[in-house]
């Protein structure tokens, strides 16, 4: 009994704040019609789910490594664009596999190159110069060959073959992929071999730079493990093989994917997006984040730069204008028996909407997204609470040095968590794309919402991320709704209509208020 009252006293501010928020929510509900009550709440949950998916990874990375990964939103966006490519233009995605796999094959050999260079004992002068020569060589080879590699894409310039048009056609089921292109100017053998060679040199160059860095830095001795990294060699061989095989089976695979039901494509898109962005994340952690752990502020600046590069990268490939992504066919039915009246109807007709209380709920936006959000919430929670990795993460959030002293390779855990965190965001991007649409600034908008959610919930707290995301999502959707119907205020003649700019403003205001009451956020730990 005593314990309970003690707990209450300890968390008094939190309880009162949550109570006030609940009351505000109930009051806001009272002003709506029954159908809008359900609809707006669902939309709030849906928005919250997407924010949560971004916020969760972000907060894990921040908690464990003290890295405020401002590229998180951009990776979310790139994930969405990768997913879009797979769903709308699978042939392009298949085309892109070969060069990417060949590039990975070279980079995967980095650990091997590390060992080899360490064994070679290159004199200091040469060790300083040759990576630069390698870099120039890499830029020359890859700069010449990669643009020549035949990837059938879209043309941002003309309407007929713009991403917007393809997306529309894919949604209608009338998509016709353009004829595949062929190598021009170079023979395929030279093209493929050259790219492979270029990527090997790139791996060696990076290892050379890293080697010289270690060489020139005299404060701490570092011993490189002298054994051959077998995993790296296998990964390299396998990816190279995959690249070459896909080159020869390009057309049948493209045709197969083009005929595939887009619900399957959607699943593939989520997986591919997750894996590729997780890979980029791992690479980013090893190459860019790791050298800057000692100075978190520079890490923050670096991620900002990466974010800017990512946005420009998407702009050059997919173009600036926003476009849509078709919903998976499970949630796109509009024909007979739709909008659905019952659960059986949904399953039978794959309706895009359900009618409840005279309102229409979109099965994808307002139901599926929430289910996915809950699924991720629970999965990550189980990962954190029930697995050894989760245990290490929770311990590392507090004191990663001590975890290392328990003979756990914390750096590998860092890389893994970074990869998982941004991979999760990319997955969120694919899931959010059909309801939000794609644009180059979607990542930034969402990242800001996620940051606000985390500031509200407590920066490194997992439940905090969930609650914060829910609060932000709800608040935004309710303001949007009241923007349509207006809030009747006693001292005003007309109903007060919150305008769209008030949507973000309201969340920021809430954040400021909550931070004034609880500077650590709702669930943040007091230091």
């Amino acid at each position, binding site marked *: 009994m005593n314990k309970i009252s003690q707990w209450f006293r300890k968390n008094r501010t939190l309880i009162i704040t949550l109570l006030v928020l609940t009351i505000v929510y109930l009051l806001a509900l009272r002003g709506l019609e029954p159908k809008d009550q359900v609809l707006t709440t669902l939309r709030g949950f849906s928005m919250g789910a997407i924010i949560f998916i971004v916020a969760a990874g972000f907060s894990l990375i921040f908690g464990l490594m003290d890295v405020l990964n401002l590229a998180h939103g951009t990776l979310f966006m790139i994930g969405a664009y990768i997913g879009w490519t797979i769903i709308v233009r699978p042939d392009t995605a298949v085309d892109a596999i070969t060069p990417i796999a060949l590039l990975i094959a070279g980079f995967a050999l980095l650990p091997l190159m590390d060992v080899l260079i360490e064994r070679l004992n290159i004199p200091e002068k040469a060790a300083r110069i040759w990576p630069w020569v390698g870099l120039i060589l890499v830029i020359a080879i890859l700069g010449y060959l990669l643009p020549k590699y035949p990837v059938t894409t879209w043309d941002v310039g003309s309407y007929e073959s713009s991403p917007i048009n393809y997306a529309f056609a894919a949604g209608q089921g009338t998509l016709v992929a353009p004829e595949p292109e062929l190598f021009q100017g170079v023979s395929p053998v030279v093209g493929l071999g050259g790219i492979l060679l270029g990527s090997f040199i790139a791996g060696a160059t990076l290892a050379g730079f890293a080697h010289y860095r270690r060489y020139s830095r005299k404060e701490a001795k570092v011993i490189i493990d002298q054994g051959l990294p077998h995993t790296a060699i296998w990964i390299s061989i396998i990816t190279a093989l995959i690249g070459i095989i896909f080159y020869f089976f390009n057309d049948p695979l493209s045709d197969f994917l083009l005929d595939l039901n887009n619900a399957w494509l959607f699943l593939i898109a989520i997986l591919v997006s997750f894996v590729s962005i997780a890979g980029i994340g791992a690479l980013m952690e090893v190459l860019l984040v790791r050298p800057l752990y000692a100075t978190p502020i520079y890490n923050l600046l670096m991620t900002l*730069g990466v974010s*800017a*590069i990512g946005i420009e990268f998407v702009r050059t490939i997919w173009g600036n204008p926003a476009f849509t992504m078709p919903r998976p066919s499970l949630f796109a039915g509009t024909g007979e028996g739709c909008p659905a009246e019952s659960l059986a109807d949904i399953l039978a007709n794959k309706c895009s909407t359900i009618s409840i209380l005279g309102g229409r709920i979109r099965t994808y936006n307002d139901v599926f997204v929430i289910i996915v959000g809950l699924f991720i919430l629970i999965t990550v929670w189980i990962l954190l609470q029930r697995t050894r990795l989760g245990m290490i993460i929770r311990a590392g959030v507090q004191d990663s040095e001590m975890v290392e002293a328990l003979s756990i390779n914390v750096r590998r855990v860092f890389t893994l968590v970074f990869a998982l965190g941004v991979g999760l965001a990319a997955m969120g991007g694919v899931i959010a794309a059909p309801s939000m649409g794609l644009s180059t600034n979607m990542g930034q908008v969402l990242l800001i919402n996620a940051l606000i959610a985390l500031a509200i919930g407590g920066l490194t707290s997992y439940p905090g991320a969930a609650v914060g995301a829910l609060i932000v999502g709800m608040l935004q959707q309710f303001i949007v709704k009241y923007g349509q119907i207006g809030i009747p205020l006693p001292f005003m003649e007309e109903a007060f209509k919150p305008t*769209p*700019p008030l949507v973000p403003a309201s*969340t*920021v205001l809430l954040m400021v208020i909550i*931070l004034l009451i609880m500077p650590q956020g709702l669930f943040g730990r007091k230091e």
Partner: protein
Amino acid sequence: MSEFTAPEVAKENIYWATIKNSRGLLITILLLAILPFIIALVDGQPFSELLSNDPGQSKFYQALMIEIFILAVYAISYDLIFGITGMISFGHAMFFGVGAYVTGIMFKSFGWSLLPTIGLVILAGIVNALIFGIVLPRVKGITWALVTLGIAEVFFIVIQSRELVDFAGAEIGLQGVTPPEYLNPVTERLRFYYLAMIFMILVYIFYKRFVNSPTGRVCIANRENENRAIMLGYNTFWYKLTALIISSVTAGLAGALHAIFHPIIRPDIAGLSFTIAALLMVLIGGVGTLSGALIGAATFRLLSFGLDRYLGGSSQIIIGIVYVGIVLYLPFGIVGTWNQRSVRRKEGREQLLRMFTGSKEKKQDENEE
């Protein structure tokens, strides 16, 4: 006799010392002042044409320099809160944006003249700093950065909203601002050039003095170790707020100049990317060095000008890569690295001296290795 002459000599020394200490600044001022004429000379344009603001190479480069001056003031104002006081703000573009939009709206929609508008810009700058500072007593570090990001983002969205299209021009930007005739950037460009230049130099001198003043020193102490500064009895909140207000007002004034100079005020100048630009400029030049901010701004503008010209669309990616490279390999920026090197050069000289006087230490080190 000597009693009378002694102070005289000392005084002369002080003047001489001041000039000597700031010779870099003086040379820079001189160079900037004659720059339009040099360009005209190189281009073969007679000075009379230059003085009557006829089009030509000189006029074109004057415009580029004016942009650099404005950016430099913006960058130095960011350096004050980021580099000197040690607060990370992600909302700095809002300071600049408020200045620009207040000026634009007052000129265009209310027809105010220059002086009252400048007054309002200063007032708005102070209010702006107070808004940022409202949570400062309780929230620090990263969380404060997030708060500034949120506030600035709201401003960014508000100026782009459809509801305010008559005033702020939505996402296209604020068009049709007519500057006062005597400051027309087209017909009176040379005058504008000198105005912007003098403004930048005044701001630089003021900032230099501020940083060396007792208040500025507490700001630096706050950056180094806030808890220690608090323990020494300083209420760091007021110092941080002072730095914020100064920074906000100068950034706002830079924004006002921007609004007068550019035919269209785009909303981009209030967005996160413009804050990043400030960060980038400060970083290129060297964090916390003030003069670094100016050099960084010039480098940044010239770099993006050059890249835009020769690479076109992909220039932004290159700028991003340069930025990441600087963070990774040149974290102290141009001025910071220069200062460090000069320390090292000094050390090198001393080492050289030691080699002649006695080389025992050196040998010992070699043996150990």
